[in-house]
């Protein structure tokens, strides 16, 4: 009984922290429609700031609390609202989600920059030495304070939302932003306030939790997954249910650590419990109605076959150039460009075409790598087929229950799966399911043999470089094939309006299931190929957090196009490592960049790849420039192969030649043809902004469906 009580109290105090963080999440989600993946990271940043002031600078406790919770946290909130989230109107759920993931990644980068990781930082328990006894069980001052703070937060939120004018306005904005503003509420002020409050709540949670856990940017930011489950129990709407969910979650965790036998296989279960609970909760909450159409600024043009083959050719050519010029160690580093590109490619049909969100790409890659590692003895290429099929089957299996969900719920479901995999399943020893022996990472790492096709082994970094570039090119062509097929049209249709698709007789579940399986399969192949490059794989290669930048940068590049996938590979595995070589400062910048890029997405939801393509437009339209490039680039390469100069000259020349071609072509044909854009005047402003024209009347009539004009003249 004592044990039970002890763990109940531990559970309640942990649950109290989750409740505080999750209530902030619910507050911002309901008022602004943005699910803040960075909620934990904001708490983390406040906790670090608190540590800095209270421990490192030895400022008084009250001052440190005041500055971190009532100055820093609200400022972060106001900044997020004005600088980042305002630009997200008329963007899809994917974009919004990715922006907040960008914020998460960026804040972790920032914290690691300011507070070097790997240094031990501790915050002592609050009220340490104080405790009181409850039926022979000791309740520490810290535990009591935590529970008390949660109760105060709950009560103040309740009173604030019910009794204050601003609180009522906040609830009104939740219901209908436009209507609330017509009635005098100021949605912008309300949303800024919601962000400020949400961040303060995150900060309170972060500071309360640091005495219990190590002060580490990644760990703290991810505690939020636990709080997600609580917020989902509250269906992202109800604060009381969120608090209840948080307490259930905290207690479950505490009981598991108290009563679960401490075998290695079950130790991970405790860590994964919140993620598994999140998954289960998602399965039982009632489904929402079919999604209707949303206005969106996003548009991905249909890729042409000719453009795709040129693209694929360039990819293979760059693979060959890199393979023949890079040293072995560089080829290992930069060889991952195309492998990560394949992982990013797996997101294009799923996220780009079908509008479904998955945060588990790297988990499927891990499964693919495992399959190839265990079944591809001697590098048997047939195992590559299994590395597609098995992750695809697992993907379909996971997706089947998750498909009732859409948008943010689906994203969270896949996040729960990914976290459960890397906290628990990937760390399991070998086991049997019936006659099938399952071997995972064997509690450490697994060797992956290099691919061997008809006796030709891809066992050097440069051979692998060529192989992976070819694989990326082939898969790109396949993905474009999907986009151009009837199936691809169906995916885009489903993304636009599930309701319309259903009323046309489309099997939504089947369609989502196949695209999920397809995406998981491509991830699996990408993972297998990445595995052959890494030679030895471990769970850390495929954890949830490492997968986030892949999604982030693919969306930044352009999630609707294969070029976006290459963009992700090149920036993650090419440009960022290159930047890190320039020194500590640039390494820190490199840690921050993906976040900044993600956060800036609201400005350009279609991705950068279209801008890059537009930049090269003059070359495409000016034939001599193409011929020039076709001569110069191979020439520069051949001179490098002949040993005339080294890479320090070669790569700048390689980058410069298309730039020169663009400049030359632009001078020759006078730049990109600008189509004159006529500023569209909204109908209701006709005759106000510009003088009234006869044609305006016709336009108004057509829009309103008025057939004739009757003018009443008084007799």
């Amino acid at each position, binding site marked *: 009984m004592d044990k039970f009580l002890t763990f109940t109290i531990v559970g309640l105090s942990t649950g109290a922290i989750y409740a505080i963080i999750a209530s902030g999440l619910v507050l911002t989600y309901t008022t602004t429609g943005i699910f803040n993946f960075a909620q934990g990271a904001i708490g983390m940043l406040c906790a670090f700031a608190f540590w800095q002031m209270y421990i490192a600078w030895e400022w008084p406790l009250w001052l440190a609390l005041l500055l971190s919770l009532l100055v820093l946290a609200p400022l972060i909130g106001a900044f997020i609202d004005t600088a980042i989230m305002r630009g997200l109107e008329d963007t899809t759920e994917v974009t919004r989600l990715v922006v907040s993931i960008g914020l998460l990644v960026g804040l972790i980068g920032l914290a690691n920059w300011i507070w070097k990781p790997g240094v031990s930082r501790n915050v002592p328990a609050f009220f340490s030495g104080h405790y009181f006894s409850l039926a022979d069980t000791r309740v520490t001052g810290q535990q009591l304070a935590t529970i008390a703070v949660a109760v105060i937060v709950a009560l103040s939120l309740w009173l604030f939302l019910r009794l204050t004018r601003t609180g009522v306005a906040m609830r009104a904005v939740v219901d209908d932003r436009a209507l609330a503003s017509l009635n005098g509420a100021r949605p912008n002020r309300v949303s800024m306030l919601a962000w400020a409050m949400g961040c303060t709540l995150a900060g309170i949670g972060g500071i309360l939790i640091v005495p219990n856990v190590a002060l580490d940017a990644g760990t703290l930011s991810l505690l939020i997954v636990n709080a997600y489950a609580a917020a989902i129990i509250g269906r992202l709407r109800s604060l009381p249910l969120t608090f209840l969910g948080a307490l259930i979650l905290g207690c479950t965790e505490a009981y598991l650590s108290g009563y679960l036998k401490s075998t290695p296989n079950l130790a991970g279960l405790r860590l994964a419990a919140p993620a598994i609970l999140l998954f289960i909760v998602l399965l039982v909450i009632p489904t929402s*109605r*079919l999604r*209707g*159409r949303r206005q*969106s600024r*996003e*548009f*991905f043009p249909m890729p042409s076959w000719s453009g795709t083959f040129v693209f694929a050719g360039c990819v293979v050519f760059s693979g060959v150039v890199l393979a023949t010029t890079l040293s072995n160690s560089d080829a290992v580093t930069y060889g991952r460009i195309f492998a990560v590109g394949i992982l990013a490619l797996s997101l294009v049909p799923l996220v780009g075409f079908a509008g479904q969100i998955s945060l588990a790409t790297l988990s499927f890659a891990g499964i693919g790598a495992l399959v190839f590692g265990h079944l591809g003895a001697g590098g048997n290429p047939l195992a590559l087929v299994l590395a597609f099929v098995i992750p695809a089957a697992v993907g379909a299996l996971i997706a089947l229950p998750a498909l009732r969900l859409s948008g943010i719920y689906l994203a969270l479901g896949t996040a729960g799966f990914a976290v459960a995999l890397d906290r628990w399943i990937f760390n399991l020893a070998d086991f049997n399911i019936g006659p099938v022996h399952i071997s995972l990472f064997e509690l450490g790492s697994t060797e992956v043999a290099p691919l061997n096709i008809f006796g030709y082994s891809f066992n050097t970094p440069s051979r692998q470089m060529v192989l992976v570039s070819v694989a990326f090119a082939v898969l790109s062509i396949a993905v474009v094939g999907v986009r151009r097929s*009837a199936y691809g*049209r*169906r995916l*885009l*249709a489903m*993304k*636009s*309006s599930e*309701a*319309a*698709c*259903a*009323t*046309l*007789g*489309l*099997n*939504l579940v089947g369609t989502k299931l196949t695209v999920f399986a397809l995406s998981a399969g491509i991830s699996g192949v990408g993972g297998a190929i990445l595995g052959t490059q890494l030679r030895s794989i471990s769970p850390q290669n495929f954890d949830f957090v490492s997968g986030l930048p892949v999604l982030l940068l693919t969306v930044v590049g352009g999630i609707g196009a294969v070029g976006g996938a290459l963009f992700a590979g090149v920036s993650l595995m090419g440009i960022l490592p290159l930047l890190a070589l320039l020194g500590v400062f640039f390494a820190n910048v490199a840690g921050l960049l993906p976040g900044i890029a993600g956060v800036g997405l609201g400005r350009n939801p279609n991705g950068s790849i279209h801008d890059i393509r537009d930049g090269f437009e003059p070359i495409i339209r000016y034939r001599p420039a193409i011929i020039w490039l076709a001569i110069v680039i191979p020439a520069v390469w051949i001179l490098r192969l002949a040993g005339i100069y080294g890479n320090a000259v070669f790569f700048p020349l390689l980058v410069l030649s298309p730039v020169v071609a663009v400049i030359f072509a632009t001078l020759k044909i006078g730049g990109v043809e600008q189509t004159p854009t006529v500023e569209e005047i909204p109908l209701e402003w006709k005759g106000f902004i510009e003088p009234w024209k006869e044609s305006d009347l016709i336009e108004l*009539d*057509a*829009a*309103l*469906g008025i*057939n*004739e004009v009757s003018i009443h003249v008084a007799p």
Partner: protein
Amino acid sequence: MSLLEISEVSVRFGGNLALDGVTLAAEAGEITGLIGPNGAGKTTLFNVITGLQSPTSGRVILTGRELRKLSPTRRARLGMGRTFQRLELFGMLSVRENIRVAADIYKSYSGSKDDPAQVVEAMIDKVGLRSVADARVDALPTGQCRLVELARSLATRPKVLLLDEPASGQDDTETVAFALLLRELAAEGMAVVLVEHDVALVMEVCAKVHVLDFGRVIASGEPADIQTDSAVLAAYLGSGAK
């Protein structure tokens, strides 16, 4: 037996009774009109019929078969087609592709031998969208968007066609052509249910008209009778009107 029968359908949203015991039927080869002020429950009724909204009580019967347990997809495959008042087009696709999606879906479940590409061309001509066939639907005016939705639905060969304000956004000449098209569709054997604010159009083409107000059917009958019905006049013009 009517092709589509709706019997005692009620929908409650919290304390608000959006539909209150609605009973009506639509016959094959006829156009049935459904009119009523804004908020009367017309779109909600369409959502119930197509399965996007589950009713609190009541039944929807298509060719003698009760649909209660069937998903929107299954209902569509049984021959239920519709358009939406708030447009539900596939914005990133062209007019042709929008219709093609529907034709492909139809072919996949019906086993029809028709070439979807030809079906699409036929539908484009039928509703008169040839000149904008390759335009992205996001760039079209509302009136034409409604025709795209109609063509898209027709590509699945529906038995019952529910049209939610299809003529809004159309000009005079377009409406005349549209009335002809509706008659043609009915003549092909479809049961067309028309929700429309253009009362003149409804009175011109419909065999029977139902008037919905505050979720209840306040009048049913032939157009001529409806036009003089005192309850209808009261609903539209206020209780003082005679």
